[in-house]
């Protein structure tokens, strides 16, 4: 059986974790407090750990002689299939938390469903990752409430971040052709079915945080098809620098 669709499906999931992990990694040493710095770096490392499992599996499935590092570091921008949401920059702490919150709630639902996949490797990765992601969701949701129900300034900043990032949320529930194939095979999760629960869960937290739930009719998409925002190139330059400069380099 041609496994190309499955490899692409895996990239679609893993690239979200990879790019978000890279964004959080940029904060290392720059967090607002020592404690939060360690927390966001921990989340970043959780995500990279998950990415390794996905890419090791994808490398196994591939007919080419490639390794997890090739997949992570040596693709071109158009070959990364992450959603636009996760590549958005760390404008301020509110954006970091807002982005994390909007992604974690999706990630949690995705992994919960992925436990029912017919692919046993994906089931194993989902089970292991779910505990980590449950904590990420708790961390980011707690911070949403703290910032929303905090001071005038924190409330205004987190509302701005949520309003700005909201337009990237719809893409989380889009299916590419490869995703559809994976769903047909009983391997992939039909993310379009998670949408209602997602917006309900997110709205609950926002309301508890005394924040407005944005009402938006226009959304942006593209990342899942490899068409990224202007921020992606800079992120990749940073991330790929070592492997491009010293090909085959290992720690």
């Amino acid at each position, binding site marked *: 059986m041609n496994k190309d669709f499955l490899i692409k499906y895996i990239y679609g999931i893993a690239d979200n974790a990879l790019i978000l992990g890279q964004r959080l990694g940029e904060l290392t040493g720059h967090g607002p407090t020592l404690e939060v710095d360690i927390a966001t770096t921990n989340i970043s490392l959780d995500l990279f750990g998950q990415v390794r499992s996905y890419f090791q599996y994808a490398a196994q499935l591939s007919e080419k002689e490639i390794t997890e590092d090739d997949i992570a570091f040596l693709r071109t921008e158009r070959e990364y299939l992450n959603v636009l949401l996760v590549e958005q920059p760390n404008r301020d702490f509110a954006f970091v938390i807002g982005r994390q919150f909007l992604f974690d709630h999706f990630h949690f639902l995705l992994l919960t469903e992925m436990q029912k996949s017919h692919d046993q490797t994906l089931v194993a990765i989902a089970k292991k990752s779910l505990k980590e992601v449950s904590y990420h969701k708790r961390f980011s949701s*707690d911070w949403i409430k703290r910032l929303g129900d905090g001071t005038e300034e924190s409330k205004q900043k987190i509302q701005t971040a949520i309003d700005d990032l909201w337009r990237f949320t719809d893409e989380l529930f889009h299916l590419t052709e490869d995703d559809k194939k994976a769903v047909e095979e009983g391997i992939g999760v039909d993310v379009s079915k998670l949408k209602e629960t997602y917006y309900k869960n997110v709205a609950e937290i926002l309301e508890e945080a005394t924040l407005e739930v944005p009402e938006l009719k226009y959304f942006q998409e593209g990342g899942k098809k490899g068409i990224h925002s202007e921020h992606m190139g800079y992120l990749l330059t940073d991330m790929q620098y070592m492997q491009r400069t010293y090909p085959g380099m290992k720690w």
Partner: protein
Amino acid sequence: MSDNKKNKKEWPLFEVFVRSKNGLEHRHFGSLHAADAEMALENARDVYTRRNEGVSIWVVEAKNIKASNPDENGEMFEPASDKVYRHPTFYDLPDEVKHM
């Protein structure tokens, strides 16, 4: 008033106690800053147990700990220093008694 002003800028200090294994006691691991106890617990989880050091965490705001005054060490502790008879070392332990 000055206390209030300071709190706005800096989170209070919490002391962290971690139980490393079931059956062992919680031990003092260190301290950290957090806005409240809930955040202190999450911060402690990330700062002190990310290398699998614990199965349970206690946090307590440092100001709630009443500590002995080092200036009073003379009257507090020195009277015990010459009372060796308070150590249970003046009788033979049967071999069957372990962990003493």
